Every structure is written in C-alpha cells, then in structure tokens.
C-alpha cells in the first residue's frame, strides 16, 4: 500500500489548477471587453466623442505602479505559507491588503469623478469605459475579500487546505495585476 503525503507532491495542487482555470475564464472576459472597446473605437473617428474629456494619464499610471508593487507581499505570502510560517503569511497578506485597499479607494474616487464629467448613458465610449474599468475594480474587490478571509482563517493555524488557498489567491492576484496593466493601457489609449 503506497502513501504519498502532500508534502512530497510534485504536481501543483488541485486548488491551484482550479484557480488557473478560473483565471482563464476571467482573462477571456477581459479579452472580450477589450476587443469590444476596439470594435466600438473602429466605428468612429472621434474617440472620445466630442464633449468627453481625454483620459488623464499620470494618476492612473501611478496607481497601477502601486498595485503592481503590492503584488510582492502577496507572492511572499505564498512562499511563507508553504514554509508553514503562519504569522509571516498573515503579515504579508495584511500588507498587501492595506496597499490594495488604498489603491481601490483612490480608483473609486477617480471613477466617481469621471462619472461627474461624462456618463455611460450618453455615449458608447462612456458605456464601454465604465464597464471595462468597473469590472476591473470588481475583480480587485474580490481579491481583497479573499485576502481578508485568509488572514482571519489563519488565526486558527495553518493547514494544507489553507496553504493551497493562499497559493491560489496569490495566483489570482498575479492575474489581476497583469489584467490591470492591460486595462489601464486600453483605458488610457486615447491619450497615449
């Protein structure tokens, strides 16, 4: 009777693969949104349409840098979890959570600010702009909830299940970061 405990596992755990497939779905979702953005852009010579201001470049790029920088503690959390270091894992996740929450709060402020200047109900530009950016922010929020839940769960100690949870969340954040770069470039493309 052979027994192979998970510590000697060579393949990625099931939970990681599940997150990988989920990421594939979400990446396709964003690919579709970006494709739609360009389809709508092909149709009109004026993009943004008259009356809609060009997107600002500086602040979104700084925020993007903050988000990407916050990916470092997230990936570190995965390393600490695999080493069994509960406290270090929680600290890394909490650091990321704080940075990313700051990012999201600022982004929501910018979002509301944009809504005051032009509306998704006026033009296709507005519709696709707010949908694309809004869906991205929703994904960031989900990432924050995952980190928060893990920090709380880890107070009961570390198990294989929770380690896989941290690894899967770290992979999710990697994907969100890559998608954030794509979304920001598209969002700012009329001004670039």
């Amino acid at each position, binding site marked *: 009777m052979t*027994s192979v405990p998970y510590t000697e596992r060579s393949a990625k755990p099931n939970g990681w*693969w599940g997150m990988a497939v989920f990421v594939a779905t979400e990446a*396709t979702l964003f690919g579709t949104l970006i494709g739609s953005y360009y389809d709508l852009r092909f149709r009109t010579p004026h993009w943004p349409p008259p009356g809609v201001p060009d997107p600002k470049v500086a602040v979104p790029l700084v925020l993007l840098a903050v988000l990407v920088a916050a990916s470092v503690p997230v990936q570190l959390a995965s390393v600490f979890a695999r080493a069994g270091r509960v406290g270090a894992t929680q600290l890394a996740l909490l650091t990321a959570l704080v940075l990313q929450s700051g990012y999201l709060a600022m982004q929501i402020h910018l979002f509301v600010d944009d809504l005051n200047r032009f509306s998704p109900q006026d033009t*296709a530009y507005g*519709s696709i702009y707010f949908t694309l950016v809004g869906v991205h922010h929703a994904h960031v929020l989900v990432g924050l909830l995952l980190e928060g*839940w893990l920090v709380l769960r880890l107070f009961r100690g570390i198990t294989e299940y929770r380690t896989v949870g941290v690894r899967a969340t770290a992979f999710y954040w990697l994907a969100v970061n890559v998608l954030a770069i794509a979304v920001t470039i598209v969002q700012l493309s009329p001004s670039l």
Partner: protein
Amino acid sequence: MRSRPERLELIWAERPGLLGWLTTVDHKRIGLLYFFTTLVFFAAGGIEALLIRTQLAGPNGKVLSPEAFDQVMTMHGVTMIFLFVIPMTTGAFGNYLLPLMLGARDMAFPRLNALSYWLFLGSGVFLYAGLLMGKGPNCGWFCYTPLNTKEYDPGLNADFYALGLIFNGLSTTAGALNFIVTIFKLRAPGMSFNRMPLFVFAMLAVSLSLVFALPPLTIDLAFLELQRQAGFHFFDVAGGGDPLLWQHLFWLFGHPEVYIIILPAMGIATSIIPTFAKRKMIAFPLVALAELLVAFIGFGVWAHHMFTTGLPVGALIFFAAASMMVVIPSTIQIYAWLFTVNLGRPEFRAPLLFIGGFIALFVIGGLSGIMFAAIPFDQATTDTYFVVAHFHFIIFGAAVFPILGGMYYWFPKVTGRMYHERWAQVSFWVTFVGTMLTFFPMHIVGLLGMTRRVYTYHSGFGWDAYNFVETVGAFILAAGLLIIFANLLWSRFRGAPSGPDPFYGGTLEWATSSPPPSYNFAVIPTVSSPYPNWDRAEAGVALDHGHETAATTVRDGRLDEVLKMPAESGWPIVLAFAVTILFIMLLTAHVVVAGIFAGIAGLVLVAWHVHEPAEG
C-alpha cells in the same frame, strides 16, 4: 475486522432519503440528478417542437398566434441547447462516467459539482418561469439586436433570456472547471496523457472550449442588460454603438458552442465502437487529437454566421478558409470509426445501431455544413430552411443519436439490468426513419425559398407537401423516442441482471460492479493502456482508511498525492438558492436587494470553506 468493501462503504455512503439527495456530493448521484432533469427539459423542448410542426403542417396555421410562436420557437432552441444537450452530455454522462473511466472515486471538487447541478436547475426554472408567465424569451435563440432592445421588445422577455443564460453559464463554467482539474489530476496511477480513454479526450476538449467560449456570451448578455435596464449604449448606432458587436460576441460563443454540442457525442461514439467492433480504435492518437483540433479550429470560424451582414469580403474570407479547414478533423474521425468497425468483428446491437445512424446523419449534416463555407452559397441560403435542415441533422442526428445509443450502452452499468434488445433495435429504426422524414425535406423546402422562423406561410409556393411530411416525420420521431423511454423504464424493473461487464468493454467503468458502489473501486487500479479492462490487471492502491482518492501528475500519471475528499454538504444547494434570488432581483431591477443576496452568497461561500475535508 471488516472487509475492505465494508470499510469503504462505511466511509463513502451518504445519508439516505431526500436529505441525502439534497446534500449529495457523489458524482454518480449528481449525474443521475442531471439525467432526469435534462429529460424533463427534453420533453418540454420536444413538445415545443411538436407545436411548431403542428402549426407549420399546412399553410395559414392557426394553432399558435405569432406571439406564442415566437416564444415557443425561441424556447425550443434555448431548451434543447442550454437545458438539454449540454447538461445531458456533460452533466449526466460526463459526471457519471468520468471518475469511473479515470479510476477515481469522485471529481476533483465534489461540492462544486453539486453546486453546478443546483445552479443548472435554478437557471432552467428561471427561464421556464418566464415562458409560463407568457413573458418567455421570444427573439430567437440568438436574439439579434435591434430586435432585443427595449424599443422593439419592451417586456421582460429579453431580460429573462439574458439573465437566464448568464445564470445557466455559471453552472456550465463550474462544471467545465471541475472536469478539467479532474482529468488533469485524478487519473489512476499509470494513466499518462497517452493512455486516457477517447471519451476523456472528448470531455477535455469540451471543457476547454466551454471555458473560453462562455465569457463572450456573458459579456454580450451583460451589455444587453446594461443597455436595456441602465440605458448604456453598446449596440445602437445613435449612441455610437455597433449592432454587429452583438453578432460578433454571440458567434464567438455560438460557434464553439456547436462543437461543444457534438464533441461529447463523438466521445460516446468512440466508446461504443471499440466495444462492439471488438477491436481498439484505429489511429487512436489521430482520433484523440482530432477531438481537440475540432474544438480549437472551431474558435476561428465564427464570422461565417455573418456572411450576409455586409462586412467587407476581405475580412470575411479568413472565415471561409477556416470553415473549410474545420471539416478535416471530423473527417479523420469518421474514417477511423468506419475502418475500426470494418476491420473488427462487429456486433450490431442497439448501441452500435445508434452510432451507425449517427455516422450517416453526421455525414449528411456535415456535407450541408461545408457548403456554407462558400460565401455565395451561404448568402443564397442564409435564414432559409436549408440551414434548419443542416443544424438539425447535426444536433439531432449527430448529438442526440449517440446520447440515445449511450443511454442503452451504459444502462446496464447504472441500473445493473439489461435493456430489451429487440425493442431497442425497433426503437432505433423508428427514430431514424422519423429523423429522416422530419429533417430531410427541409433541405428542399429551404432551397425553394421557405424562410426560417416564420409562424406560418401561404399556399402556392410549393412548400405545403414537404411541411406536411415533416410534421408526420416529427410524430414518428416522437414515437421512436417514446419506445426508447418505455424500454428503459420497463427494463429498469424487469430487465435481466447484467453483471459488471455485459459487453466486454475496454474502459474502467466496466471493471467495477453494476451499479458501482459508492466508492467506485475497492482498489484504485494501476493502468498501462487506454483499454485497461482488456489488459491484465496490475496492483493498485487501496486508500481504504479515509475518505480518499489518488491524485497523479498531469502529464505522466505518476501517483503524487492522497486527496482527502469532502462528505455531503448542504451549502451547494443553499448557495444556488441565493444565486437564484439574486437573478430574480436583477430581472425585476431591484439592484440593492440583488446586492444583498450577492453578499449572502459570499457569506455562504465562507461557511462552505470553513469545513475542510481533511478534518473528516
């Protein structure tokens, strides 16, 4: 000291009674739940078909009003595709058979599996609630813009359509995710990638396709709801939108969807043929790869549904070329199947008869399909009954016939009893004749100019006789299906005991009892070919001290980990209920309450993960 089967039964058996079914995470029970639910939807879709055919039996039909016809016709398509074929092949056949064929004790994520089913049920009830309220989807299964806008379709009909299909998509995505991880990680030791059964290759192709095809549909439907309910502009020219964007996104999903419909049927065919031809599949690697190739190339042909939209020929030509390419992998498979049967010692029992019918109908449907790759021909026949003929030969002939054959083939495995062979053969012939009579004349009447989706027609076009024959055929077809179900029902209670392996099948589901025990295999087998049941048995791993199954490496199938599996749980059905309410709130534009139920769903997810399987 209990025996191994007794020990395993104690570990794996679920609660008895209704509560057991509501909280089940056993893939076999979930497969059966899917099976019976999809049969109910099949009956509904079939009644809708018979209503359509009765209305169209003669000119100036008065059976259905135009409004009623629109809903019946749309729901026929939506039901058959989203609520019957896909859940039947993936949810019923896939769920029941995949762990058995892989030598595993369950799917990778058993609770997610249960959630897929309850979400599916919720989405089906949601869609039919609309129909029963007289507000069912009424814009055709692809619901083009501008017909789908508030201006032209002001009631809730298109909202039921959009939200219902997003809801249904959640279930299907969860299922596809589960299948992929199960196929990658839960194979029996020794089952490297090149030793997976062909059915598994088909399921892998289907699941990968679903993962990449469903998001464009979700986005399309979300755009539609945002436009309808929140006044956004995606598809309306006046607001700077693009009407063709709807079609691009829909067909980016829709074309892979039709391969998703047919691939599992090919998987069923490639399971039945070696068993009854008594030889291994010829050119096994080509058949396996052809299944993946069809799925891949299928993503590159979508705009062949848009040849009449006025897009530039320079852009559309890419899709004409790709549409010609996509035929080749299917053709390779057809030749492989025919050679296998001819070079074997075939026994034409009912399952193989259905596969024979499938091949004939698939060739006819495929030939009419390839004709559409030529842009001029497509432009002459778009939106005529010629198209209706093509896709019914493919969907009914090439997707449903293997499902029917598969029902007979695996009936002994699931029930432990044999079906009645003679009546099964009769049922095949009646169904086959009915299919030809119903759908073949549609080619002719389409070339004579009859357009699709018309609720009636006038006399004098030369269409009357053909339509009448089609209606007669539809009732013969219905009779054939009734004979099948009567046979299965009777055999369930009076059939002869089948034993574990009545047909000498080559794959692992035949290596365990009929029906399989709750733990599938007393010993997880070690495998050295895609036909392990035809090989000499090798030593395996017992894993009989906990709720466990084996995980292996992805490419080479080396034993890698002992997985702790979850026991039954009430959270999947609770979560599905919360999501159903969420969709109802979105339908009725109660956004805040919808948000509250989204929050509740989140809390249920937290509770779900509090219980970790390793804790027992």
